């Protein structure tokens, strides 16, 4: 892909992002419920004080102006003050984001690690009982409600067997100095294997819960891509050359079958980042998803707007990455 093509693809994403920010802005501001009332609910503020707060937050200005201000600030990375925390939205989000990224990456890696072998096996053993069992299992996995499955895991592995913690990111006594915000990395930096292990144990159940539907989906993608590739002439030709079955399957077939899988996985990562509110809530995971849920209930406009915009940017960028990966894996489209 040439630099100009790259730029063109990037520019194409701008209208999408503008549209998303407009929709988000309208949806939040037009839903009933007054943030100033919510913020002042417990205090005995005078109407004058309420009006002052309203003016401070810019809520007394007309909608179009508020949108333009929001957009202009957003471009400079300024998403305003979180009503709720009374701190810049940017800082609040930056604090919570690593936890969410850590969880998402763990979930997607887990999903890929499960999906590739299962999908390959299903494709190779196509139309046998094993294939049918795996297909049924993945259908089940795709349609499983996340919160229910999460609660089930907690009941079984945390409450009954006690092998995994019930929730949170780590144990109280095992906190390490925050450097990157990624606990696994920070505990390596701090040279604390005990903290690393604790973080890993806390990560396990939420990552499984979040990754399971994706694993199921990817298994189906791997299976169908692989099944198609296996009927191709080049697989027959590779076999005719006398290559081992292993080499034919894992090199010739899999490399081509992975092209659509990588695309789907990149897009899925975007959905996971934006779709982990339930899992974070169930597991008390201090990430962005839970923050967004709390902020929606508190009508914390600036934060919700920033978060949804962040989701949209990530989603668009991951689609873009999927494109790049597709190009890298497929010599035929390389320009």
């Amino acid at each position, binding site marked *: 892909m040439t630099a100009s093509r790259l730029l063109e693809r990037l520019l194409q994403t701008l209208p999408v992002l503008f549209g998303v920010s407009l929709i988000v802005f309208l949806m939040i501001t037009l839903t009933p419920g007054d943030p100033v009332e919510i913020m002042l609910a417990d205090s005995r503020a005078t109407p004058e004080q309420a009006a002052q707060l309203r003016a401070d937050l810019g809520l007394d200005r007309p909608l179009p102006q508020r949108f333009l201000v929001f957009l202009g600030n957003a471009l400079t990375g300024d998403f305003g003050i979180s009503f709720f925390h009374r701190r810049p939205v940017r800082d609040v989000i930056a604090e919570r984001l690593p936890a969410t990224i850590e969880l998402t990456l763990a979930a997607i890696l887990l999903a890929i690690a499960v999906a590739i072998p299962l999908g390959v096996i299903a494709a190779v053993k196509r139309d046998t009982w094993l294939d049918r069992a795996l297909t049924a299992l993945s259908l089940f996995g795709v349609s499983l409600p996340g919160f229910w499955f999460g609660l089930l895991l907690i009941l079984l592995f945390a409450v009954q067997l006690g092998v995994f913690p019930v929730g949170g990111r780590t144990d109280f006594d095992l906190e390490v100095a925050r450097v990157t915000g990624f606990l696994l990395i920070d505990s390596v930096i701090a040279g604390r294997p005990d903290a690393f292990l604790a973080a890993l144990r806390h990560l396990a159940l939420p990552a499984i819960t979040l990754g399971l539907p994706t694993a199921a989906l990817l298994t189906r993608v791997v299976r169908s891509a692989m099944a198609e590739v296996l009927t191709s002439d*080049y697989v027959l030709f590779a*076999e*005719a*050359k006398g*290559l081992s079955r292993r080499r034919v399957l894992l090199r*010739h077939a899999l490399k*081509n079958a992975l092209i659509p899988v990588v695309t789907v996985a990149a897009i899925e990562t975007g959905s996971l980042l934006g779709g982990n509110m339930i899992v974070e809530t169930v597991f008390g995971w201090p990430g962005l998803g839970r923050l967004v849920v709390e902020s929606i209930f508190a009508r914390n406009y600036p934060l919700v707007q920033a978060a949804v915009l962040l989701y949209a940017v990530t989603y668009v960028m991951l689609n873009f990455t999927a494109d790049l990966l597709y190009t890298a894996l*497929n*010599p035929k489209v390389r320009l």
Partner: protein
Amino acid sequence: MDLDIAAGEALGVVGESGSGKSVTFLSVLGLLRPPGRIEAGEILFDGRDLRRVSRAELRALRGRHMALAMQDALSALNPAFTIGQQLIETLEAHGLAANTREQAAAALSRVGIPSAAERLDDYPHQFSGGMRQRAMIAISLAARPRLLVADEPTTALDVTLRAQVLDLLDELREQDGLALALITHDLAVVAERCPRVMVMYAGQVVESGPTAQVVARPLHPYTRGLLESLPRLEDPDRPLHPIPGQVPDLARLDGGCRFRNRCSMAISACAGPTPLADLGGGRASRCLRAAEVSP
């Protein structure tokens, strides 16, 4: 079926689409895909029954002793690997890799690809159609097999390239003593290049023999029909006679002659067994009335 091809010899295999040419030769290479399987018979290669050797032994034979060239190089070559990688892995699979890049370049030059060493790192789609077909043949022949099954290796090419690739196969046959099974729809190509021919119909060999004699005096009505359905250079105005009727459903065969529903010479005995009979002089036919086919 009895398939013997001597070193340096070319056997033409003809028959309508769906007559089982590809399936038959893929089964020789042990490459039938499920649900396909060999129900009966033996496949002898150097006196060994290939149906009895283990999968590992068969794999060692494939590519090393018998190789396959396919119709469309664009689909036969893996789009995700370079020509060099695909050539070298064949050498490696058979323990023949020494100074691989030189070997690979030599293999490409052998099939007439110019500046071969530089083209090793190209992907299949970067080759032109004719060069790609040559590259595929080079890959098939990398380990210097003795038998090449070429399944319509020129159908996907235009006329000039077709002749070039066929010339190449002739050359390899003469120089290296390669035995060639050339599967084709084109009887003219067989008449020109293959001393012996095998005619297939509905999954069976119905006639075989020296090409010149088979063409001059077919001993099976299907062969005769095939010849009559082709235009002839020396007599372009001769009326063409396509064979009426259709190939029987191979899943529902009785024991009789498979051509019977389309044969104008059928008699009641044709519902019985029709084995491939040796008629002397290297000729064989399944027709019970072979002697009467060409009056």
